């Protein structure tokens, strides 16, 4: 069938009557068929009614030519598909090696990770383990009495000058503790000095605060 020579009008008539018979048999008609039918019905009307000069729609002839082109192109694609399928195809007429000898690659992995990755992984996990629900911020504060007791226990019997930091070092692990321990124990130490239990000395500005039991002070005295 040479599509170039078929009468578009006849084709439209034929198709529309086909759709009509199918519809009578109450068969489900695919949307595509209906679209085609509608399009052909429109084309038929364009072909039958002469083109008005003011009409901006494409002429019936142009639409017919376009339809013809599209049918020809589709036919060409169908023909091409046939030609493709008739070629000597792999696994049908042409064969690949039946006993391939695959290249086996022995892979040894060199693992790669940076210190940053490692630390990030650790920090992320530690943070993840912190309970997410809101907690009242608990302030760890040393009361003056607490500081005084600890200070006295730390100083003990020592008669040597010792920096306050050294005494407190075991309490200074977290920054919050450091601040409160320093503040409270410094205040307490001043109180202890006033009561005559300890001596306090600082040899230079911002130097370490040195602390010792005051000679002659009895330990059990408070």
């Amino acid at each position, binding site marked *: 069938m040479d599509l170039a020579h078929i009468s578009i009008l006849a084709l439209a008539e034929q198709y529309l009557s086909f759709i009509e018979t199918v519809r009578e048999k109450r068969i489900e008609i*695919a*949307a*595509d068929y209906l679209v*085609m039918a509608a399009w052909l019905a429109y084309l038929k009307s364009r072909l039958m009614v002469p083109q008005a000069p003011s009409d901006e729609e494409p002429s019936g002839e142009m639409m017919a*030519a*376009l339809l013809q*082109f*599209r049918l*020809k*192109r*589709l036919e*060409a*694609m*169908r*023909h*091409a*598909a*046939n*030609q*493709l*399928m008739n*070629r*000597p*195809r*792999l*696994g*049908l*007429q*042409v*064969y*690949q*090696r039946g006993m*391939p*000898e*695959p*290249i086996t690659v022995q892979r040894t992995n060199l693992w790669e990770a940076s210190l940053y990755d490692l630390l990030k992984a650790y920090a992320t996990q530690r943070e993840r383990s912190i309970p997410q629900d809101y907690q009242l911020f608990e302030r760890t504060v040393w009361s003056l009495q607490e500081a005084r007791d600890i200070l006295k226990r730390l100083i003990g019997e020592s008669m040597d000058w010792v920096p306050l930091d050294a005494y407190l070092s075991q309490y200074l692990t977290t920054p919050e503790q450091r601040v409160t321990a320093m503040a409270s124990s410094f205040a307490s130490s001043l109180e202890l000095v006033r009561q005559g239990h300890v001596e306090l000395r600082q040899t230079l500005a911002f130097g370490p605060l040195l602390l010792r039991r005051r000679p002659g002070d009895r330990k059990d005295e408070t």
Partner: protein
Amino acid sequence: MADETLDEVEHYEIAERNLRIAEALLFASAEPLSRDDLATYLSEGADVPALMAVLEERYAGRGVTLVRRGDKWAFRTAEDLGFLLRREEQETRALSRAALETLSIIAYHQPATRAEVEEVRGVQTGKGTLDLLMEAGWVKMRGRRRTPGRPVTYGTTDAFLDHFGLETLADLPGLEELKGAGLLSSRLPPAMQVPLPFDGPLRDDEDPLDPDDIFGEDDTEETA
């Protein structure tokens, strides 16, 4: 003089060794191998295409021949022996007409979007059809057309060339006639410049695929 001869001998030996290695690798593999696949095993700076030309000549007319498939090479049984070797039991599942048409439209009009395939076919193409062609390994998603909706563009694969025994897309049957008749164009009247099927890198009007495309194969944007 003696040195020259020695050089020649050495050169010849290296070439022969490369040929043996390439021969072994191509023979061992069921799939076509690229220049890079081969070069890894050959002597430094080996001229792969030249070696392939020698091999092709050596195997010309034999029962097994060296063929080029896109940028790759493979040993395949000679085409003319097909009728003899045809295996009865290997009855491939016949492709549906829809799949056949879609395949040829993509082959001849690539890169093509689904909408373009549908335009040529005149009917909607089910997603299943494209999936089937991709599963067969003949069609792949290339990129996204730089037009509203950014539809996915499809093209054929090296496996397509291999399966249909084509060296390049230029060997597609009837390509010249189709081009001459303007049937590769999407418009009427045939455009002045008739596009040819193209399976090279992305075109000017194509974007690379989105990262999601590789996993999802979701092309809802075309229907949206």
